């Protein structure tokens, strides 16, 4: 069977996020990294392959993104993917979640995988929705926020994080599963794996190659309009009240709230 893992290049977690005042969008310059949640998805694919209960012939990492996103694919193959696919096209820039999901689904159709894995969210956009959008286009069942996958014959028994506790859900393949970071501890790629990553096949696709209808992607093909995003106002310094006499402290807090007409 074939597993496709969707990955994304995002600003490095160490970089302070800010809104670019010129475009009203997230400033994505600065250091980038593979979305941390996606490393869990790759690890999940590797564990299915190494677990031996499923015959996994191939793990393919797929990304949609600018030229620089190749680095996310390099990392993905150093972590164990056998090859990678890079969907990149000027026409795709500015795609919203629905458009991105459509474009990725078109790319996935060419691969016809038995299982699609992805991180439950990206570190930058944090939409949590790509998995569901992709599944809808592929007409495959979708599970989100999965934190454990067990193979049981032909089905995958998954635990998904619910508001209270876990749901246990069985799903037949093909399916689209987005995973949370509690699912595993991703491995560190060895130096050999890092150096070998460049030798693994990398396929670059344009929107046309992937059979993407250009009217459904890019800024023009997206329903979302970016209005005026602004960084939240800087927090003013708080007031620290030393708790010497609790009654007095309470009075001070009440007075403080009252002054601001909060109670």
């Amino acid at each position: 069977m074939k597993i496709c893992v969707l990955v994304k290049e995002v600003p490095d977690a160490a970089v302070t996020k800010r809104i670019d005042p010129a475009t009203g969008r997230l400033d994505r310059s600065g250091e980038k990294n593979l979305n941390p949640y996606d490393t869990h998805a790759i690890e999940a694919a590797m564990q299915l392959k190494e677990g031996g209960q499923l015959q996994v012939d191939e793990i393919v990492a797929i990304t949609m993104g600018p030229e620089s996103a190749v680095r996310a694919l390099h990392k993905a193959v150093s972590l164990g993917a056998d090859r990678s696919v890079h969907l990149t096209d000027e026409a795709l820039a500015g795609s919203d979640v629905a458009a991105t999901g459509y474009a990725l689904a078109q790319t996935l159709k060419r691969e016809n995988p038995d299982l699609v894995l992805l991180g439950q969210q990206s570190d930058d956009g944090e939409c949590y929705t790509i998995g569901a959008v992709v599944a809808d286009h592929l007409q495959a069942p979708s599970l989100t926020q999965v934190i454990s996958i067990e193979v049981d014959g032909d089905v995958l028994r998954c635990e998904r994080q619910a508001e209270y506790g876990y749901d246990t859900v069985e799903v037949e393949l093909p399916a689209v599963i987005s995973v949370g970071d509690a699912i595993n501890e991703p491995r560190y790629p060895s130096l050999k794996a890092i150096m070998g990553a460049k030798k693994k096949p990398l396929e670059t696709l344009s929107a046309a190659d992937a059979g993407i209808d250009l009217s459904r992607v890019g800024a023009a093909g997206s329903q979302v309009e970016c209005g005026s995003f602004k960084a939240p106002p800087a927090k003013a310094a708080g007031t620290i009240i030393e708790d010497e006499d609790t009654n007095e402290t309470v009075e001070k807090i009440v007075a403080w709230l009252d002054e601001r007409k909060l109670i």
Partner: protein
Amino acid sequence: MDFDLPDGHELLRRTVREFAEGEVAPVAEALDREKRFPYEIVRRMGELGWMGIPFPEEVGGAGGDTLAYALAVEELARVDSSVAITMCAHTSLGTQPIYLFGTDEQKAQWLPDLTSGRRLGAFGLTEPEAGSDAGNVRTRARLEDGEWVIDGAKQFITNAGTDISGLVCITARTGEDEISNLIVPNGTPGYEQGEPYRKMGWNASDTRPLTFTGCRVPEANLLGPRGNGFKQFLHILDIGRIGVAAMGVGLAQGALDQALAYAKQRRAFGRPISSFQAIQAKLADMSAEIEAARLLVYKAARLKDAGRPFTLTAAQAKLKTGRLAVRCAEEAVQIHGGYGYIEEYPVCRFYRDAKILTIGEGTDEVQQMVIARALGA
């Protein structure tokens, strides 16, 4: 001229950073406090190929280059110097002599265990009366019935006395005016490792005195041609300086990162201390100096990888980075105020760990001699 790291190198740098932050940082304080050798970390670094980065795959290495090695050392030292020096001394002092000067048999016997990190290598050059004057070797080895019989002592040797130490390469006088290198495996009768020193820093790294009393090793343990020991160790030290210089950059960067994070969060006079010009000036100076030193280290690594002369650049890098590490650690403590003097904060350890970088693998004064000689002074 291209200042971007190649993709593979960049990915390695990130990976080592993630490992250092995820696996080393949480235990570094305890390892230091308990003076405990980081066996588990070394084992994992071995699995990742980091105990043999600059050696080809044919001998069990990871097939990387000097730049990759320097990046890994830098990222480890950014978080913990004991772990960094363990990997660094093992690679450039312990394993390198066998890789460069060993016979096919010696390489086949030792390199797979060394490059995989299953065994550690050590380099025994320094003696009580041979430090900067490393040619003043007193340890003697005489050939007797097809064996070298070694008598003498070594001082301050890294990696020789752990449970996984495999061998030490020592310099010994094999004739009146003749120095040669010999491989002495751990466990050889007559070769003893003394108690670890009580050090100022590098507490989780293994440093001991060694004694050799009628210690016998096979004649075939001679490393390279007899009498080449002096030339050989000078070359080993040249290469080693790139690693130690990378440690200096890493430590300095770690000190800056800690200081910046602390300064943004610590408040005084109703403001974060990072908003005071005096603190900003310190951070800015550190950052500019570190970037300059880093380029020097990478240049030395690049020259070596290109097969060009690198002795001068490596000595410049070592001189620059040792002092820089000491200064940045001091500034980082200063920015932390009293908290910097308390062991809960990593900068306290950094301050103690930094000083050796102006002494080990050639003191600053020795680097100045090397540089002045290269300048033709």
